[in-house]
């Protein structure tokens, strides 16, 4: 492959480095205790996956990964953690997070990994020949072949907006003083 010969070695090394960084930072993020630290580690993981997207020939997706995942979704997480304003450590969690508790889930997923390895080993695939796919092709495919999918995604986002607004809304406070006091008495009686 003409594209494969040009600087293939350095690109491969960059791939391995980014993959190691992604795996290590994801493990640290999943096993951490402090939620903000875990989020920052997850951002490192997302950025290294973005590097991988870029060297795999998907520059548009690399940009989207940084902008939407690291930029928007993680900021949403950080906002929620700051709104909750708690020491995010719960007693059940500290009981659960002993090293012994990691054994069984890790064992189960290790079995899955072995399955996966065997499947990959038996799979027939040609030599990897990555090609750069520019945003233009992606846009043409998105708005011709997958137009219906775009419409459905738009409806999904609308449903997400409405749902998040409805669920995140605070209860309306009663300002009227008589109603307020009456409601308080009622609430005390009923025990709400």
């Amino acid at each position, binding site marked *: 492959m003409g594209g494969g010969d040009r600087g*293939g070695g350095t690109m491969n090394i960059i791939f391995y480095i980014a993959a190691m960084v992604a795996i290590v930072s994801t493990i640290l993020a999943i096993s951490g205790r402090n939620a903000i630290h875990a989020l920052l580690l997850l951002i490192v993981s997302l950025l290294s996956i973005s590097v991988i997207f870029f060297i795999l020939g998907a520059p548009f997706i690399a940009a989207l990964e940084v902008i939407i995942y690291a930029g928007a979704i993680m900021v949403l997480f950080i906002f929620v953690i700051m709104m909750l304003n708690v020491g995010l450590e719960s007693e059940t969690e500290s009981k659960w997070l002993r090293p012994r508790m990691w054994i069984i*889930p890790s064992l189960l997923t290790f079995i899955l990994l072995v399955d996966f390895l065997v499947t990959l080993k038996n799979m027939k*695939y040609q030599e990897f020949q990555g090609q750069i796919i520019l945003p233009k092709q992606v846009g043409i495919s998105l708005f011709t072949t997958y137009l219906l999918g775009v419409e459905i995604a738009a409806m999904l986002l609308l449903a997400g907006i409405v749902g998040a607004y409805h669920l995140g809304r605070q209860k309306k406070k009663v300002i009227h003083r008589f109603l307020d006091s009456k409601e308080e008495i009622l609430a005390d009686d009923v025990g709400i």
Partner: protein
Amino acid sequence: MVTIPFGIQVLFAGLLFLIGLVGLLVRRNIIFMLMSIEVMFNSAGLVFIIAGSHWAQPDGQVMFIFILTVAAAEVSVGLALILQMFHHFRTLDADKLSNLKDIKTEN
């Protein structure tokens, strides 16, 4: 361009997915559970990108955009649900929500 075999690249995505799965199984803090789900979404998208690059088709990237949309909608609704949960129960522990009893009788 990368000349790493297809299997190793997919293996990397699978490792990332399994790390997210372990996190989802082990953690009880619901914010960490949501983060693990994000990791799993991301690795599924990574497989699409690898396959799209392998067969030189833009469809993989289109699918990644759809996955991104689903992840964004899921996170916004999930975080709103976490806010509601925290207002009702004053905890982020997913195990505390495992009973279908009344709030008053539970506390």
